[in-house]
């Protein structure tokens, strides 16, 4: 039945949004800035997956980790060279750190898009699917094999991340730095490494999201802009810095868009989230589960 299909479809879309949004919200939690190049990490992941499996003949299952690796490297480099000044104190933007982050990540986004455009070409490529099964029935609804596999992988990744943050030593250090950078550094935690870990994790997730969706979306250099905007919406609605908030908001948005496209307006399906973002920022700026932003 249609509603159930829409619902499940929405949830699956939401899972992918979550892969993107969770990384973004973590970066905000630990660095207090928005990474405007986030969509490009997704794009790099999609391209790595596609190129590695097509050009190198590597089986798709191995191309996934390759994409993850690309994301990790890029994330490490970005944090190390561009983001350090935000808290290390040096760099000429000492007073306007939000603006620095916007400009530098915008620049990075431009750079990545145009590098890929130049080096690889502007035309969409097609990545191989992980599964050739196009339709199978799972209980009361129909789903393609690709979607099912990617949904499962997404769930595994999200659960893995949650466990990492909650249970592992590094994960708890990340939590400490997110809550109070100065305090954490006084307690002996390596805040630079925590930031590095967060950036890498965020980009790995985004890259994998891109890789998983590559067969569906046909990556082109600017394919990351759209999911990025979605991520911003989700991060705000869920609460900047709150991982559970992002996951909940992602699923909500996925379902909302799924139903809205059919029952309200297909053309304007992208505006629902944006309007919601503005409303949330005005009425409840901390989002669903975020912390109150202190004034003065």
């Amino acid at each position, binding site marked *: 039945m249609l509603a159930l299909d829409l619902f499940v479809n929405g949830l699956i879309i939401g899972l992918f949004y979550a892969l993107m949004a969770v990384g973004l919200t973590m970066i905000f939690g630990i660095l207090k800035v928005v990474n405007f190049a986030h969509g490009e990490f997704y794009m790099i992941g999609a391209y790595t997956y596609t190129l590695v499996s097509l050009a190198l003949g590597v089986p798709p299952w191995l191309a996934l980790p390759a994409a993850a690796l690309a994301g990790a490297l890029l994330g490490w480099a970005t944090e190390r060279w*561009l983001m350090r000044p935000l808290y290390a104190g040096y760099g000429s933007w000492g007073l306007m750190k939000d603006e620095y982050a916007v400009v530098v990540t915008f620049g990075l986004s431009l750079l990545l898009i145009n590098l890929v455009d130049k080096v690889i070409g502007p035309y969409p490529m097609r990545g191989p699917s992980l599964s050739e099964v196009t339709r199978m029935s799972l209980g009361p609804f129909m789903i393609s094999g690709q979607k099912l596999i990617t949904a499962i992988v997404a769930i595994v990744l999200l659960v893995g991340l949650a466990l990492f943050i909650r249970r592992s030593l590094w994960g708890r250090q990340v939590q400490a730095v997110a809550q109070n950078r100065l305090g954490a550094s006084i307690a002996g935690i390596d805040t630079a490494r925590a930031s590095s870990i967060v950036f890498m994790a965020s980009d790995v997730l985004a890259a994998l999201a891109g890789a998983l969706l590559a067969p569906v979306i046909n990556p082109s250099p600017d394919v990351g802009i759209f999911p990025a905007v979605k991520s911003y919406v989700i991060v705000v609605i869920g609460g900047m810095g709150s991982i559970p908030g992002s996951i909940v908001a992602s699923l909500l948005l996925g379902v909302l868009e799924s139903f809205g496209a059919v029952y309200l307006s297909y053309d304007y399906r992208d505006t629902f989230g944006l309007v919601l973002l503005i409303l949330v920022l005005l009425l409840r700026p901390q989002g669903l589960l975020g912390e109150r932003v202190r004034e003065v």
Partner: protein
Amino acid sequence: MKLPSHRNFLRRKLGEEMLLSLVVLAALALVPLFVSSPYWLGVLIVSMYFAMLSVGWNLLAGYAGQFSLAPAAFAMLGGYTTGLLAWHWSVPLAIGLPMSIVVPGLIGLVLGRIVLRLSGPYLALTTLSFAEIARLVVYNSIDFTRGDQGLNVPALVDSRVANYYLFLVALAAATLLVYAMLRAPIGRFLMAIRDDEVGAASRGVNVVRAKTIAFFVSCGICGFAGGLYGTFAQLVSPELGLIAQTGIVIAMVVIGGIGTLVGPLIGAVLVYVASEMLRDVGNVQMIVFALLVIVFARFFREGLWGLARNAFARRAPAASAPPSPAGQA
């Protein structure tokens, strides 16, 4: 009592920057005497379009500290205001063009009120959402706006050279307007808000009023740029409002020197002309451009203008000495 004066005092600094801006504008005025290629004149016209956007955005972000991500969207709104008035109701440009200042200005005023209590990433994201919504609405309202087919706009003047001087005059007017604003008390209120909004309010600055005015003027300038561009290209399309276009404006201002009067001018013109020249060299202009933005943001916050000024200051050390009580430094 004779007031001491110093290069770093705001009004004097603004005066010097305005003088330099006039020099740049004068240089631009002389270009058609030496360059007759319509292609290059067209390049300069487009760079002046970007320069106007840069001036408008720099007022809001560089001087008032409101890092909006919507300037391109307002240019698009300005272009469509003029275009739609002409297309649907045959409104002449004499009214349509001024409307491209007023309508985006008023919309900007409303946006300013919406984001009044926001700052940093929240402000950026809200303005980004607004810009995307605007673009999507224009894109999807095919019956009204003709969507991505674009909307025809009547031309204001016929020749390329005439368009060139039209844009130059508009750019000069925008720069002078911003200069006048910054010289007036409100200019200093905006800079105080930029440096410390809570502190500014604590010193008695009417923050709501100042921000509202900044949004109105900034968005009005951006809108006007869009309106003029429409009459030049005789076409407006939703692509004017793409976030990527805003990215270009931000990059131009950062490279030129954010928070200065002359930075947006030189940033826009140099970057756009250079990118056109680089286009012949293997189409790498966007990559170079993006690298420059990152490098400047990371290492040279003061931009090209700041670098030039520092180079000059090193050769004239007396300029950095404190003012003497009886006169100037």
